[in-house]
């Protein structure tokens, strides 16, 4: 039986996981990286979004055997030098968070977008977070927060 070591937020973790455990379960239950949330656990809601080699994926339906030799970035990996990432700051200050459950997933989708496209239009922002369901905010405050983080005009 093989145990997987995974590279997460720049650190290598020996997980003791079986190949078919979901990355999300390994992150939350084995590594206690509980920033990534379990919403639907079937790839619909986006609250488990993490980046795999820089691209957003759904960690709840991603098995750990497909993660080895690759790099995972979770919301815990965003702050630099103890300071929250600008996306985290704007989401907090502009009412992009209410219950907070979708927030880490939204932040990771937004981070992936801004890495590829630093000044996205409102349509591009909405397209990028279409896979993240939020029941509280109605999305407007989230879009405004992401526009602020990107430094683009808020409508």
């Amino acid at each position, binding site marked *: 039986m093989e145990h997987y070591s995974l590279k997460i937020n720049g650190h290598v973790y020996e997980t003791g996981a079986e*190949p078919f455990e979901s990355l999300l379960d390994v992150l939350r239950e084995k590594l206690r990286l509980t920033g990534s949330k379990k919403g639907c656990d079937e790839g619909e809601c986006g609250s488990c979004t993490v980046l795999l080699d820089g691209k957003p*994926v759904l960690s709840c339906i991603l098995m750990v*055997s497909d993660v080895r030799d690759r790099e995972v970035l979770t919301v815990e990996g965003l702050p630099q030098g103890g300071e929250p990432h600008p996306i985290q700051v704007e989401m907090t200050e502009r009412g992009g968070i209410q219950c907070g459950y979708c927030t880490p997933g939204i932040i990771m989708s937004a981070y992936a977008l801004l890495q590829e496209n630093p000044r996205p239009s409102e349509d591009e922002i909405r397209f990028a977070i279409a*896979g993240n369901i939020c029941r509280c905010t109605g999305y407007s405050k989230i879009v405004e927060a992401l526009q602020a983080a990107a430094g683009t005009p808020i409508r």
Partner: protein
Amino acid sequence: MTQFRAHPILSPVLGLEGYYEPASTDEALDILRQGSGNYKPFAGGTDVMINLRRRTVTYKGLVNIKRLPGITSWSNKAGEGLHIGAATPFGDLESSPSVTQRYSALAESIRVIGSVQLRNMATIGGNLCNASPAADSAPALIVSKATITFTGNGEGTRSCLVEQFFRGPGRSILDSDGLLLSLDIPEPEPNSGDCFQRFTPRGALDIGIASAASRVTLDQSSGRVLEAVIALGAVAPTPVRAVKAEEALVGHEPTSDLMAQAAKIAKEECNPISDIRGSASYRQALVEVLVRRTLEQAVERAQK
């Protein structure tokens, strides 16, 4: 065998006994045959993982095909078109200008599949092998005259049109030891254009109630329709062509009236079911609208 990994104790939750990562196609076929119908090829996992957890399927083993040579990559060669490994994630194709600029219908169908995150996992071959009548990429691939290359089924490697691949809901021509290897999409002909549209209540994360793809090739001198291909999704047990509607267009000038008439023929030609997403008559009404709109858009693109 190289790179052969078998895990004797596997997640009891999923009911699996074996997990394999073959490094060659021959090895993959050997493993699938050993499973005698109980092993499932595994690529993006966005359907297989969920079906296993919901217990709507049971497999004794999974064969992860993503380490087979070339199966997760694709290329675009001038004069040849797109060659796409079956386990290429949609996200890799979606972000490439060589797809979005020349293969409009395909690009439009990819953009509506699931979500950004899902498309970074879900593969083009998986979308076909899952054989949903509503598979978003299928109508676009059919009108693009895409061919697939597969192996197994007790025979060697061979190819067929995507149109010939489906047998019914969840069923394709592949047996349990068959393996889809790649897709080839020819370069669009000169003076041709195509378009895909689907209808869903939500803008993302939804399954189409009906979808249509149209492709039109015009005669350069007369501007008349040389060839028309129309494919429909979610209105039959498999994605289907609307052959009578196509025939109504060929040889004529592509006027709005003619396209509206062809759309009406497509509506009568299809025979959908009623289900939780929509009634049969609603689906037929959607087909008329979607065929008319995709034809108009395809003709406009062909005239550019």
